[in-house]
């Protein structure tokens, strides 16, 4: 069974703080994705990574950056948190696109920026 863990379930940060969200998967997948989930908007892709040190912007990368130093770990960074980044953040570990391309999601981190 694929296991995807995220460092925190709930996080409260102040405006302007730098925020790190960590995601770890144990299935040796090359592909990992970060989404934010907001009511009525579904899941929106922030960034994805298809290999160590490789990353691509998703649909809403502004205000975020990512780091992939090891295959199993994909970090999302909010350089200077703002209230409009209050959201649920989901990490996914993904099988290759030529195969089933299934996404295995972590439990999510609910971030509140005050």
């Amino acid at each position: 069974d694929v296991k995807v863990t995220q460092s925190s379930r709930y996080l409260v940060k102040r405006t302007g703080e730098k925020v790190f969200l960590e995601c770890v998967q144990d299935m040796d997948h090359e592909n990992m994705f970060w989404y934010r989930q907001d009511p009525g908007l579904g899941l929106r892709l922030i960034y994805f990574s298809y290999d160590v040190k490789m990353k691509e912007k998703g649909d809403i990368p502004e205000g975020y950056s990512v780091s992939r130093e090891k295959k199993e770990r994909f970090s999302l960074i909010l350089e200077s948190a703002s209230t409009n980044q209050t959201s649920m953040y989901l990490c996914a570990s993904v099988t290759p696109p030529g195969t089933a391309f299934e996404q295995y999601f972590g439990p999510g981190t609910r971030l509140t920026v005050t």
Partner: protein
Amino acid sequence: AQSVSQHNHHVILSEAASLELGCNYSYGGTVNLFWYVQYPGQHLQLLLKYFSGDPLVKGIKGFEAEFIKSKFSFNLRKPSVQWSDTAEYFCAVSPPGTYKYIFGTGTRLKVLA
């Protein structure tokens, strides 16, 4: 731009009622299609997927979906829902061989006991 539409945002049903959740996508080429489910307090998980072959796909917990290419649709169905099916359901589309993965906005299903 490619998109996925889920027209029903909230659905309320009584137990044993039949369910059909709509999903339409806009993409001209071949696509892989998915339904994911998020039960209250749990993480998103795959319900079923379509890659090729029989357009009627069966998933877990008695769910099925039918791919109708001419209608660009992939509707989710269940003949008789249970209280435990209360969840949010997301349709997703991915063109094969790409990293692109487009989710719909989700449908919240509430099943009354």
